[in-house]
């Protein structure tokens, strides 16, 4: 008998099982292949725009992804470094051998966590409550809560051209029964599609014909607890190349052979990650499309051809790849494929990630309709935390949209549902100036400590950082610039206008052209870079940040307008019928959540508000 069973050892399952064990639950992680735990079946990178911020959030909450990425990457860079602080995000090229290996070690060293190889084919359910799982061999394993993180394994179908092979990713065993069982329990199953491009043999690539993309020379870490442990000069590059008219012609000539255009696939693919044939059909005026070659691992000889995913048959893929500059003689080690899989309609999930129909069943990752390792990890850790909290009889832990990208992700899923694999984008977050990569600890570690997922030491570090930020801010506010000849010289040297005498350093820092690093050259600022960065951002963007906080307050009012769980939407007359259906399905907890449901328009919200007021007053 376990407290919590996690089914699936992908990025969601890892975080879910790890955090559940950290919180003292007797936890079992079941994977169909132990060697594949922490595997990266698609791109060899972790992080990226918005996603990198999720990695930091997972880390702030006590998760593993960032820590392992830090010690297994081949290259790391800060994206959008030339843009504002709100949109910066880390991305690394992770070694596909090292990352899973180190992750498996970390899990093995996690107390309370048992790992088992098996294929789960059914759940044990009594009175709409999950009590355990049944494996393919018929073994029954009991638990108080079950977290499903099955990725693309549910009825996976691999599509290459017109061939359709039942399979998990990489030709792994797929899980045949579980989604049917879920359907029998009353869950709605949706079918999604995603794809992965070709892998190319390194020795067959002519890199001299491509543009080299190097890692940053500034050292970075995902984890707030790690110090950089790699040599910035010894990173591995990626390469940029382009499609050309020949490539496009090959694709156009063979369009009907592709699984997607030939009508062999039924799943809905992601718009933001289109196949190359999609790009060429939809953006026919573009003469070329960008592609990247990314190293997969130091331990084998394959490169990942990002941007070239396709469901064309293999002979066409050969022609397509060989039309690319530098890949004329390329040896394709793995062909691109599309994979279709079953997921559950996320509208059936509560914000805690618990299922609305089956109590004590939690789901995270691709089974909830998302895409991406980071999105999976973010949900995984939340599912693990919430399952633990429920078993402990505590309140659920819901991140608000103004707390974290993870909050935005889950709210979007459970409120709006999805018809394509959901990928996080910075534009999905309305408070992105608050949700920065640099303040993930400030945003989330208080919560984490309260729940018990970070150590006292980590918490103390947070408190020290907070205190230092305050100190530095006050110092800058209460100390004033005294202009002397030396200063005049420094400003002149740096081509800066000489400020007024007696201006506070804080006001000086507000000037666009003055950085905290420059300030450090004229006054002694003895604080860490992280502290300096916080103060700089909070000073320079104070107006915008305060405005965002005001918006958060406004939203909070709507969030506080709760909709009673027993509301009967059929009694609310004058609701548009589409809105009525959506509301019945989503069961929003608050007016704010209701207003975010697509298909529920402002007029419906007014009607609903009026109804609630009327009903509430009557009671």
């Amino acid at each position, binding site marked *: 008998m376990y407290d919590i069973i996690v089914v699936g050892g992908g990025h969601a399952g890892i975080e879910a099982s790890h955090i559940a064990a950290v919180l003292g639950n007797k936890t079992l992680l079941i994977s169909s292949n132990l060697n594949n735990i922490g595997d990266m079946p698609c791109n060899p990178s972790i992080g990226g725009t918005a996603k990198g911020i999720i990695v930091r959030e997972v880390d702030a909450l006590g998760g593993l992804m960032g820590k392992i990425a830090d010690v297994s990457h081949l290259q790391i860079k800060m*994206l959008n470094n030339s843009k504002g602080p709100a949109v910066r995000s880390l991305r690394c090229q992770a070694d596909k051998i090292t990352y899973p290996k180190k992750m498996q070690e970390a899990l093995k060293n996690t107390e309370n966590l048992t790992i088992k190889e098996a294929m789960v084919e059914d759940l044990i359910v009594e009175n709409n409550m999950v009590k355990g799982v049944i494996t393919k061999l018929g073994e029954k394993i009991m638990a108080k809560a079950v977290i499903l993180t099955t990725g693309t394994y549910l009825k996976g179908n691999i599509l290459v051209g017109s061939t359709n092979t039942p399979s998990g990713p990489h030709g792994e065993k797929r899980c045949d029964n579980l989604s049917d069982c879920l359907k029998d329990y009353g869950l709605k199953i949706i079918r999604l599609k995603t794809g992965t491009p070709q892998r190319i043999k390194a020795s067959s690539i002519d890199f001299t014909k491509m543009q080299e993309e190097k890692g940053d020379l500034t050292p970075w870490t995902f984890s707030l607890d790690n110090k950089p442990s790699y040599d910035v000069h010894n990173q591995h590059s990626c390469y940029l190349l382009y499609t050309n008219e020949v490539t496009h012609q090959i694709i156009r000539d063979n369009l009907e052979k592709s699984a997607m255009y030939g009508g062999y696939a039924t799943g809905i693919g992601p718009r933001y990650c289109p196949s190359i044939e999609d790009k060429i059909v939809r953006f026919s005026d573009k003469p070329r499309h960008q592609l990247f070659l990314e190293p997969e691992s130091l331990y084998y000889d394959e490169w990942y051809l990002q941007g070239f995913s396709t469901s064309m048959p293999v002979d066409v893929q050969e022609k397509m790849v060989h039309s690319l500059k530098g890949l004329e003689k390329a040896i394709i080690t793995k062909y691109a494929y599309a994979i279709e899989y079953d997921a559950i309609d996320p509208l059936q999930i509560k914000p805690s990630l618990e299922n609305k129909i089956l109590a004590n069943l939690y789901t995270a990752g691709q089974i909830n309709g998302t895409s991406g390792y980071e999105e999976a990890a973010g949900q995984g850790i939340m599912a693990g935390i919430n399952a633990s909290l429920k078993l402990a009889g505590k309140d659920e832990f819901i991140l608000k949209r103004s707390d974290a990208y993870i909050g935005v992700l889950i709210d979007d899923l459970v409120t709006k549902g999805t018809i394509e694999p959901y990928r996080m984008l910075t*534009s999905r977050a309305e408070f992105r100036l608050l949700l920065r990569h640099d303040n993930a600890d400030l945003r989330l570690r208080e919560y984490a400590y309260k729940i018990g997922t970070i150590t006292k030491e980590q918490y103390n570090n947070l408190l020290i950082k907070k205190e230092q930020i305050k100190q530095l801010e006050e110092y800058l506010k209460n100390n004033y610039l005294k202009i002397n000849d030396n200063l005049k010289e420094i400003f002149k040297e740096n081509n800066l206008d000489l400020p007024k005498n007696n201006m506070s350093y804080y006001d000086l820092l507000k000037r666009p052209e003055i950085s905290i690093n420059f300030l450090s050259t004229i006054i002694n600022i003895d604080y860490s870079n992280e502290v300096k960065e916080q103060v700089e951002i909070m000073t320079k963007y104070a107006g*915008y940040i305060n405005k965002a906080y005001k918006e958060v307050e406004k939203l909070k009012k709507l969030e506080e307008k709760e909709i009673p769980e027993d509301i009967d939407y059929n009694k609310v007359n*004058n609701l548009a019928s589409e809105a009525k259906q959506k509301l019945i399905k989503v069961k929003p907890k608050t007016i704010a959540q209701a*207003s975010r449901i697509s298909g529920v328009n402002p*007029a419906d919200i*007014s009607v609903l*508000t009026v109804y609630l007021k009327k009903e509430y007053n009557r009671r």
Partner: protein
Amino acid sequence: MDDTIVAIATALTAQAISIIRVSGSEAIFNVAKIFTNKNLLNTPSHTILYGHIKDNDEVIDEVLVNVMRSPKTYTKEDTVEINCHGGIKTTQKVLELLLKNGCRMAEAGEFTKRAFLNGRISLLEAEAVNDLINAKTDAARSLAINNVDGLLTKKIRNLRDKMAKILANIEVNIDYPEYEDEVEVTHELMEDYLKDITINLKNIVNGSQNGRIIKNGLNVAIVGSPNVGKSSILNYLLDEEKAIVTDIPGTTRDIVEGSITLNGIMLNFIDTAGIRETNDIVEQIGVNKSKKILKEADLILLVLNYNELIKEEEKELIKSIDKNKLIIVINKNDLELKINLDELKDYDYVLGNTIDLDGLDKLKEKIIDKYNLGDIIYNDMAYLTNVRQIDLINKALEEINNANKAYLENMPIDIIEINIKEAWNILGELIGDAYTDELVDNIFSNFCLGK
């Protein structure tokens, strides 16, 4: 919301036909209870039936009944309109009968409120309907009709679409920073974008000023030293134009002494008693009320005496008034010229007197000229007209100004974008595409009864 409402849709005066409107799920059923033509319950939508309204056995009126079934009606609910044979008593009797038979008296603006809540019209259109009902002049009515047609909504929606494209471009740059083939919104591009948005918004704001003038008219204050002839000028203007009414409450908090229409625009003369009745006008300028009047009036007619030199206190008064809304009326030009007209050469002034009414027509021309009253009406009429709308559009403009400021401060594009997105949201709120909580109650409390 689910009950059936009724109201008299036409003005309650003695006239040939008055219309009673019923809307709600039981509209047809309730009318059928008092209507002799038994086809009513089953008649197809959008048909007219002939019959009698009966109170038990007594025939009240011979009527035509228009039946419009949901959803193709103004409120999107079942709607019945009873065309009665006019007459205050008959109409009221029919109304009473309906109230007795399951209908509820409609609240102010409730038909339009339902039309909005049921998704039939946008917020802006809903407000325009209110304006239409309250329109005092033909120009105001035509303005309101234009808004109902959604011309303004269309204008704003176009601007929003344009902004959405820019926003989307910026988002793409953020989410796909390494895709060099996408156009990058640089500071240079941003400058152009901001200019374009600013011009578009300003056009709407300027239009909104005209819209307000069309809707509310110009508030005019007549000021001047004692005995320069203020009252005669006022009386002349009011008499000449057969003043519509006196002592009607104006749209400002001040009392309007009387109104005239000039080129289709209302001129509301504000009670300037506070200024007029004192002997020393300059002393009175210190009085709050006077200051307020001078500030709030759209047009100030300052009356001077042709036959006297300009007094010091008059000079100060002239200085204290915004030149753009000042017209100096130099009265009594039938007497000897003593005033030094050179001192007034920078101001708009007209000469005249109230004995032979010389020059007062010129005053009217001057007003028309100064406020472009001629142009306003014949221009396209997509103007914002009420305080909430103008407030929102100004807020949007303020956000764009902030974006401009951020641009000049060399803020990152994604920070500048925050202001543009906010402006975009505000415009959405203006045309009812975005939701804020108190909005609806606010708007509908301003509605008049009937529609």
